[in-house]
């Protein structure tokens, strides 16, 4: 399990984590991926293999999670409660 493979996994995870629509989940996913790789920096070969497999599984899960929000974009039942004035709408849309 080489350095190239590990870096490939990291790149895939980060690329997928950036796909979250929600700010909080996106930031958390990026932070968690970074923390996970930092913790696994000085780990022996078997530990590294376990972490790599765990990372691969999380990558699949992450793909499904980011698609979920995409799927919901088209739903019309989401009506967020917003107080606003038409003045604010005008300013914000500039």
């Amino acid at each position: 399990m080489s350095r190239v493979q590990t870096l490939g996994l990291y790149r895939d995870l980060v690329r997928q984590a950036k796909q979250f629509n929600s700010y909080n989940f996106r930031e958390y996913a990026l932070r968690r991926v970074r923390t996970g790789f930092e913790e696994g920096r000085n780990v022996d070969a078997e530990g590294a293999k376990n972490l790599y497999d765990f990372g691969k599984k999380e990558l699949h899960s992450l793909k499904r999670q980011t698609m979920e929000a995409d799927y919901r974009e088209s739903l019309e039942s989401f009506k967020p409660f917003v107080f606003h004035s038409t003045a604010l709408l005008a300013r914000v849309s500039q």
Partner: protein
Amino acid sequence: MIRNTTCLRFAQKAAVQSHFRPALHQVVRPKITMFARGKATAAPAPQLQQELSFKPIMTKQSAPVEEKQIADSLQITKKAGRAIYLDMQATSPIDPRVLDNMMPYMTESYGNPHSNTHSYGWETHDVVEESRENIAKLIGADSKEVIFTSGATESNNIAIKGVARFYKSKKRHVITTVTEHKCVLDSCRALEQEGFEVTYLPVQQNGLVDLELLKNTIRKDTVLVSIMAVNNEIGVIQPLEKIGTLCRENGVFFHTDAAQAVGKIPLDVNKMKIDLLSISGHKLYGPKGIGAIYVRRRPRVRIEAIQSGGGQERGIRSGTLPAALIAGLGSACQIAAQEMERDTKHIKKLFDRLYNGIKAKIPEIYVNGDMEARYYGNLNVSFAYIEGESLMMGLKDVACSSGSACTSATLEPSYVLRALGVEEDVAHSSIRFGIGRFTTEKEIDYAIELLTANVERLREMSPLWEMVKEGIDIKTIQWSQDK
């Protein structure tokens, strides 16, 4: 793919356009005169209709206008984002990993876990047992001791009423504290109606229970002591191990409402000698509508069932188990066990940032509750010399909770803060910030800025603050009374 612009962009825009912020937060309620001569007239004043574009409650509008308003709201949300969520004690967002684990049981795998004749039932039964195992591992228990309920409220009801009613022939006394959650206090009140005697222990000024007082209150006919692990309003952690040892020595059952504690602080029911423990799903990044109760088997705790039915869950809580929600709770617990250390570090960092930020910029603040024996995801601060409602109005971009029950129907300040000895006016102006796994540093910084701006603005307007700045002691003033 459209990416939602988040509250961050809103924060940046706000920094530039902060001069119009007060206008945003003036909630002007349209005058609705009802029952005027038998007719309900509900048209809001004409100038308001131009200013505000939220739908007044009783006006009937035609469909195209309604759709336009909804489309506008969505547009605003996409551009301006929603409020920053800092109310983790009220509830927490479902972790995407948890939702991912729940999905199969809401789509293809819909069997009843109790159907043991076909594969639909077997697969859902498997996930129920796996979740039971995960929950038990998190609290150091055995999976046979975990029973699923609809939430911590139901678990508390089962623990208090069920245990007390089972042993009612011999034991008639229950001990709890004044700072418990409403469901615990209400269950105790129900027991009082049935003839039990309940002692509500006062707490010290830092929110912790006095162990000497507890020792002296335990009697020969005490059946249960119920003390929550982490308080939802002020965040203090009670000394569970010491209380557990005390209860074990005196042969009294120890129940703890650990809804805010599970998955956040390390819990071990054997080390802490806990006999009953309530778990809530939606406080640890799981779904709402599910919870669990841990009931010790050795030495056995007997419970009289509250809900009658088919005898599921050891007869204690009958009803079909919601496999999807249970899968959510189980995976939330498993993720919590895995992430506890990382989350604790992250939350402590954010707590320090928030607390030091507020302390540096705003004088005369009081933190409610002990600073060391505290779960750092909860910061409850009181701001002296300002009016609580106005502060809450100004903080609409940050979703947090106030210490008083103003947001509910009554104007009473929170009973927890009153139990700490906080004066009524200070209790009204307290805010509770909840930090969690998904909170970021930028959100904390924005919250500090907004809070500082609002507190300064309100204090500028406050005559009490002027007097304090001049050095007058408010308590020595003789206010003139109306004749």
